[in-house]
């Protein structure tokens, strides 16, 4: 088994153990959130030894080239000497400028970054709670349309960071963020391509950014947004989206309710099923899935079988971490 060298100590990994588990199990404070290779919170760098490519999935090329890797999905076959990234590497501070309840238990957090943040709507940032907890939130704002970075944070029962955002965060407070990361955004260059966007709950956040970004960039192909929830209250920003659809003939907004009966104006059924029923042939389409991990997995597969090319399917699973984190 490979060993990890960190700060003059040697850590023997057990079979199947990730670098993250090996280190945190021995008390090394490596931050983590999704533990699934998505959020990039557990970013580390190898100064000796090459990390496996599977542990670099989704990283920027500039980071890969410098042997950065994600500790939670790193199962090395050779010894590595590793360091935590410099705190400044990709972190910065921001001031909370607004906190607005949008309905459905969703808080819109407006952040003013202290240094310009180069992001694309739909990417995500990691938000640090003072005590060291970190969580990913997608960006719903569009540069040029919105002054600040907007996040949509859904309150989870017993959720540490979402509970803190809803209950304790105040305008004027300073927070630390990291990122942006992720490839769920509108790529320029194919203005006529049909776009299908499918989200559950706060999965609307990136899609709201992507739709408005596409419209602002003059996208002329059809844009269809399906937002799903159990009850009408969960379909926040519905008025804004209906108004947007009024103004743009090629943009459709289809709110979906998964409960047994849907009132007038709503489609009934699970959101990815409704969307694929309405749009059964997806050759040449670009498709975005965000929100509930099960929905995202099933939706991706169905869209692919319906003819969409894999490179045209973008997805963010909003994985929620385990209830208690080892070492936390």
């Amino acid at each position, binding site marked *: 088994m490979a060993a990890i060298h960190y700060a003059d100590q040697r850590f023997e990994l057990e079979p199947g153990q990730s670098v993250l588990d090996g280190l945190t199990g021995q008390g090394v404070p490596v931050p983590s959130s999704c533990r699934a290779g998505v959020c990039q919170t557990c970013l580390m760098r190898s100064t000796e030894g090459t990390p496996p490519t599977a542990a670099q999935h989704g990283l920027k090329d500039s980071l890969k080239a410098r042997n950065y890797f994600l500790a939670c999905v790193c199962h090395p076959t050779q010894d590595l000497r590793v360091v935590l990234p410099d705190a400044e590497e990709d972190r910065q501070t921001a001031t909370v400028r607004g906190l607005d309840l949008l309905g459905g238990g969703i808080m819109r957090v407006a952040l003013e970054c202290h240094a310009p943040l180069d992001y694309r709507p739909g990417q995500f940032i990691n938000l640090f709670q003072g005590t060291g907890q970190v969580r990913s939130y997608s960006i719903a704002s569009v540069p040029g349309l919105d002054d600040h970075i907007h996040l949509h944070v859904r309150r989870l029962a017993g959720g540490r960071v979402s509970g803190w955002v809803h209950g304790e965060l105040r305008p004027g407070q300073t927070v630390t963020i990291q990122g942006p990361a992720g490839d769920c955004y509108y790529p320029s260059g194919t203005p006529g391509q049909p776009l299908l966007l499918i989200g559950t709950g706060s999965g609307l956040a990136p899609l709201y950014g992507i739709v408005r970004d596409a419209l602002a960039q003059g996208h002329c192909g059809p844009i269809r947004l399906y937002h799903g929830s159990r009850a009408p209250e969960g379909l926040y920003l519905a008025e804004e989206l209906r108004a947007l659809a009024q103004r743009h003939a090629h943009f459709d907004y289809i709110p979906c309710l998964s409960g047994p009966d849907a009132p007038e104006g709503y489609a009934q059924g699970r959101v990815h099923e409704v969307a694929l029923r309405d749009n059964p042939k997806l050759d040449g389409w670009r498709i975005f899935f965000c929100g509930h991990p099960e929905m995202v997995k099933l939706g991706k597969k169905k869209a*692919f079988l319906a*003819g969409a*090319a*894999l490179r045209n399917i973008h997805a963010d699973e909003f994985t929620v971490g385990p209830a208690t984190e080892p070492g936390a």
Partner: protein
Amino acid sequence: MSQNTPSLYEQLGGQAAVDAAVDIFYRKVLGDDRISHFFEGVDMDQQAAKQKAFLTMAFGGPHHYTGLDMRRGHAHLVAKGLDDSHVDAVIENLGGTLRDLGVAEGLIAQVAAIAESTRADVLGR
């Protein structure tokens, strides 16, 4: 093979042919009720990368597969009941993919023969 005869991989169109085939092949495999259950719950992007490596090998292209890799890579599927009928289905889908791309039957037969040569290792025999 002599210097001026193009290899099977070159005749098929090399890397570009693999890129063109991978989505079609993976879609056929996922949509095939005989074998789709072996792919339940796996990450699609990772799985597509594996299909690409398999196609490269079957097309006679540069690859690093060994018989031992094949055994290790499929052992968990053999435990779940992978047998000859499933290998047949995969080879059939491979042929169908190449036909969709307009590849000549003679070349398809050569690709099928390479895939066939992995059968014993895939099934751990």
